[in-house]
């Protein structure tokens, strides 16, 4: 009887692993989940898998710079590609990342400044002030209104992430001119944030921010433009008076077993056809020079590139140098 038990278990284990053995390589890609990742699946992952039957793409979410670092540190790297934000993938992050192999990836196709030693841009994004139109009689305009609880009551959805633009937003609302933002006055920003702290509901993932606005739990939020647009049916509108620009970057963790396949995939993901397809599903701009002319008309008026005059540029270099200290202070402030 014991023998049968063991053989049953063994057979079960074989069946489970057999599926994975069929494809030669499995690339694990981590992204931010929700509609963003679904769009990537449709525009990037599925076409890539169709073009390369020997490679399977497995998806994970949410992306986390810390989790990637922990994987590299413990030597158990099981992501091959990750989508990240501006704060990560700089030259100072060399210990965590594989350099982009520009013999496989064509560096010349990128918009200047979006292809670095360790990262290449996937799309140009924006963090915008989105609001539930049903909640207010007049539309909020700019960051000052975001901090105005009297005129615009209700909860604010904000990303619980120091380099999310929240410090810049607070300082601009407090009257700091856009060209004098850096170096950031962290304490002044936190003092300004204290005025709405009880009305902030923090989100960790893009899908959460969408949920908060759609369900009415938050009346306003600083969210990624893709999330705001997909809430349009529920009456979510975007105020483009002020917005911070962000970039989505592809990075490859150091020590991945599939470095070459990962580079091949990145080259494929950033080709014009794929990037143009992506703009059908998400209101983000492409990073490929040739793709810019062909972006889909679906989101006209809500593309970050339609509002370049109001953009607040974040200083990635300042954040690379000061990010860790600011984050420590931010974590403490959250608990105060």
């Amino acid at each position, binding site marked *: 009887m014991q023998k049968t038990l063991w053989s049953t278990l063994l057979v079960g284990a074989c069946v489970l692993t057999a599926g994975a053995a069929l494809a030669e390589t499995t690339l694990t890609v981590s992204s931010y989940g929700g509609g963003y990742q679904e769009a990537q699946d449709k525009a990037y992952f599925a076409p890539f898998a169709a073009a390369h039957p020997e490679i399977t793409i497995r998806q994970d979410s949410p992306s986390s710079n810390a*989790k990637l*670092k*922990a994987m590299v540190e413990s030597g158990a790297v099981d992501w091959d590609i990750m989508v990240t934000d501006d704060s990560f993938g700089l030259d100072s992050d060399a210990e965590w990342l594989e350099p982009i192999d520009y013999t496989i990836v064509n560096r010349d196709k990128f918009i200047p400044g979006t292809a670095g030693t360790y990262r290449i841009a996937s799309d140009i994004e924006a963090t915008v002030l989105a609001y539930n139109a049903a909640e207010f009689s007049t539309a909020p305009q700019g960051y000052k209104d975001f901090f105005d609880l009297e005129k615009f009551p209700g*909860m604010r959805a904000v990303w619980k992430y120091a380099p999310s633009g929240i410090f810049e937003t607070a300082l601009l609302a407090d009257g700091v001119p856009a060209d004098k933002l850096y170096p950031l006055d962290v304490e002044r920003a936190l003092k300004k944030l204290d005025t709405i702290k009880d009305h902030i*509901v923090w989100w960790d993932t893009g899908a959460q921010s969408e949920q908060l606005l759609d*369900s009415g*739990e938050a009346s306003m939020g600083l969210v990624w433009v893709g999330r705001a647009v997909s809430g349009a049916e529920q009456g979510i509108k975007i105020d483009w008076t002020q917005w911070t620009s962000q970039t989505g970057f592809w990075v490859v963790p150091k020590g991945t077993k599939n470095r070459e396949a990962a580079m091949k995939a990145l080259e494929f993901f950033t080709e014009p056809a794929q990037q143009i397809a992506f703009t059908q599903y998400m209101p983000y701009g492409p990073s490929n020079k040739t793709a810019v002319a062909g972006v889909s008309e679906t989101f006209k008026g809500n593309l970050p590139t339609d509002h370049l005059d109001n953009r607040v540029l974040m200083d990635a270099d300042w954040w690379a140098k000061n990010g860790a200290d600011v984050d420590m202070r931010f974590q403490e402030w959250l*608990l105060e």
Partner: protein
Amino acid sequence: MTLSSPAIPRGPTLVERLPRGSVLLVPALLFLLLFYVYPLAQLIGASLPGGSGKNYALIFSRPVFLRVIAETFRVSLVVMAVTVLVAFPYAYAMANAGRRALLFLTIALLIPFWVSLLLRSFSWIVLLQNTGLVNQVLLGLGLIETPLKLIRTEIGVILGMVHVLLPYAVLPLYSVMKKIDMRLMEASSICGASWFHGFRRVYLPMALPGVLAAAILTFTLALGFYITPALLGSPRDMMIAQMIAGQFSEQLNFGLGAALAVVLMGLTALAFALFGLGRVLLARRAAA
């Protein structure tokens, strides 16, 4: 079968007087030493990098850590009190119910016991969100005009934790209560004592060991909660377990995370020691 296996991880006195069949215990003990004691010991080692106590110094000097520890204690105490107060009548009902009522109460108690804590926290999110069932009912009854904010608040955390811990409090209470002879209560009422007086003077002292066991079990388990406060609380309701997880998966400060884990282990052990003391004191009083 030899009994003098050198692998027995106990002191020599035990090895000398090894009881029959000890070899049966060896696999389980070895397994736990390797996969349970060793990892915990490594944690202590990691919390003292190069023998330095700087991580502990940091914990006990930075207000942010002390605040989280104090908060963990406070929430655990509140949860313990609520759980025991709700569990007491429930266990009393079980101990004095007929067959069918007992069956129903037992099933109602054991179903949540076997459904994962993660799923139950998920359900609470669905129930407590602004468009959730609780707010719908309250709005429908006209009791409130705007939805109450229930998730990402301390109320959410406490509800979720009490829900998880209730069976742990009811079971020890029930096992004590079902042995209490209800004729003593009847006797006290025949003697003219009011119900409340009889309850307080006769029933409660006999149920006290159960109350104590329920209280300590819920309190120590509450100290280590992670999933429920992470999903139902706000950043300000952070408990020590979340901070440990954060140090390991977000801040990547393993030494500090390990030190916090050791502090949590210590607090749990301390709570259990207090329980032991309480039991001894109770037994003494009963003997006197």
